[in-house]
């Protein structure tokens, strides 16, 4: 049953078309993140997920937005973030010490507090079998809370967890590492959209710190 038919049959339900979300630059060329929606960045370790998250946070703080990071496994490195250009004064960092329940409650509080330009939820260090246990209701709750706001909720993880609740699912592929003799110069990561399929396909270079 399509939307016009539903509208005709159930006018009291208040069906309305959802307008296209406003998008904000995501920190790398060709990537824009939808506001008022959930974006998932997934991929294996060393695929550039965290670099992409830091880049998006740096981009948001450069727009003078206030950001927050719910760091489930306490793995955020302020030095890497500062080197990427992230304004640490504008980033609320919550270290959850490996407690996923606490991390979910923190995200819930942050989403409902409002006023944050970008909320990052780092689940990359959480084992997939544990991340899968997050109830779908939690993702629906986050999506519902963030919908009327201009905030971006960015999840960083190994595999997509929010799935239907996410408006954009990005997948980072295996990085191409740049070694020069016995020196690590950096890496090139590829980013492609898994949802909507093929909407984004881009690459970005990262430089080794120091």
């Amino acid at each position, binding site marked *: 049953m399509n939307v016009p038919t539903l509208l005709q049959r159930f006018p009291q339900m208040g069906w309305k078309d959802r307008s296209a979300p406003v998008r904000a630059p995501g920190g790398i060329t060709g990537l824009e993140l939808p506001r008022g929606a959930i974006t998932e960045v997934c991929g294996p370790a060393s695929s550039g997920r965290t670099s992409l998250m830091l880049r998006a946070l740096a981009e948001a703080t450069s727009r003078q937005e206030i950001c927050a990071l719910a760091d489930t496994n306490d793995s955020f490195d302020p030095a890497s973030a500062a080197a990427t250009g992230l304004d640490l004064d504008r980033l609320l960092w919550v270290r959850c*010490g490996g407690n996923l329940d606490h991390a979910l409650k923190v995200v819930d509080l942050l989403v409902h507090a409002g006023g944050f330009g970008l909320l990052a939820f780092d689940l990359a260090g959480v084992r997939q079998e544990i991340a899968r246990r997050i109830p779908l209701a939690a993702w629906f709750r986050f999506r519902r809370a963030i919908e009327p706001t201009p905030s971006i909720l960015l999840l960083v993880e190994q595999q997509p967890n929010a799935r239907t609740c996410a408006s954009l699912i990005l997948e980072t592929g295996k990085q191409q590492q740049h070694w020069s003799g016995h020196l690590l110069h950096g890496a090139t990561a590829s980013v492609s959209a898994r949802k909507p399929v093929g909407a984004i396909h881009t690459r*970005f270079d990262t430089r*080794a710190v120091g």
Partner: protein
Amino acid sequence: MYACIYPLSGRPGWLNDFSPLVEFTAPDTVLLDAHGIGTLFGSPENFAAAIHARAQSEGLAVNVALAGNPDTALAAARGFSGITIVPPGAEARSLAPLPLCHLGAPPEIIGILHRWGLKTFGDLTALPIKGVAERFGLEGVRLWKLARGESRRPLVPPHEAPTFSESLDLDYPLTLLEPLAFLLARLLNELCARLESHGLAANEIRLRLALANGAEHVRTIRLPHPMLNSRTFLKLLQLDLENEPPAAPIVKLTLATTPVDPRVVQNGLFLPAVPQPEKLELTLARIAQLVGRENVGAAELIDTHRPGAFRMKHFGLWPDRPAAHTGQPHLALRVYRPPLQARVRSRDGQPVQIEAPGIQGRIVSLAGPWRTSGDWWRSDAWSHDEWDLALAGGTLYRLSRDRSTGAWFITGNYD
């Protein structure tokens, strides 16, 4: 009418028995508003005599003067002994014999007047006012009118600084936080109403709880921005007390705030929205309750060569600086806190294979060792050799060897 008492030091409480409006003009001079004294004291003479008698009963020898304006009463009290009544309309004549030193003029003007041969108020008032104005300007006119007893001004009562503190003695000791919240809400409402009536806000709340065991439980909540919302203050205090409850029943509570000017913000039309300060403080307090106060805030890099050194600071004070330029993305490091202890197989001093919880593999690329050490004069000195390495699967790690113990650690993963 106005009464002046001279000399009278301090601020004796009995002055309010004579008048509700008192001005402490100088450390040794007091002016009283004597309007409407007729029904209480009868004539002005009776009023002056009553004041004089009261001062004498306190062991004070004072002059009391009554006049139609404060400055005339003041000059008369300073210039004439005992009780002086200056009748209305006779001010100039009454003050005429007083020496110029009682005029309260600047020394340079008094010096000039003396050089002119003027000694008394009467000498000064004998001069034409136009000439005085030409020579001394407005100040000269003011002094001329003062000498004639024509100055008019209201009394300035002492301004007592308002106190923003509330205290409550309890009839019985409180053991639960919920009833305490009701009492706190009452005190906070009163405090916030008082702050609001003075056009102020608070950036600090201090709660002092006297406990049944004689100890005191003191909590201080500092706010990054001045606020004036009793509900926010109450919630912050509740969360704080839930985190750090008092050790014994409460018998008395005292609540005080530090008054400051309210925050005035003019946001730009095109600036992005930021969290509301009240809501942000509550959110931070709730998060701190979950994960601990030390795990919430903004990271601040420490100026040291120690790898990964940072400290946490309170979040909420971001500078209003222009947008920073973001450069090229850097390879982000995901730090393992604490570092993972590893078993490493080496060949010619270089690691070739590593094994740690959840990590195992042959090293295919390696950079290092990079030697880092410092703070050798302190107990937490460090001395490490570090490698960047890639395993066969393509995962990048940072490996570290403690040079003092020889132990291997995986400190992070490049992502």
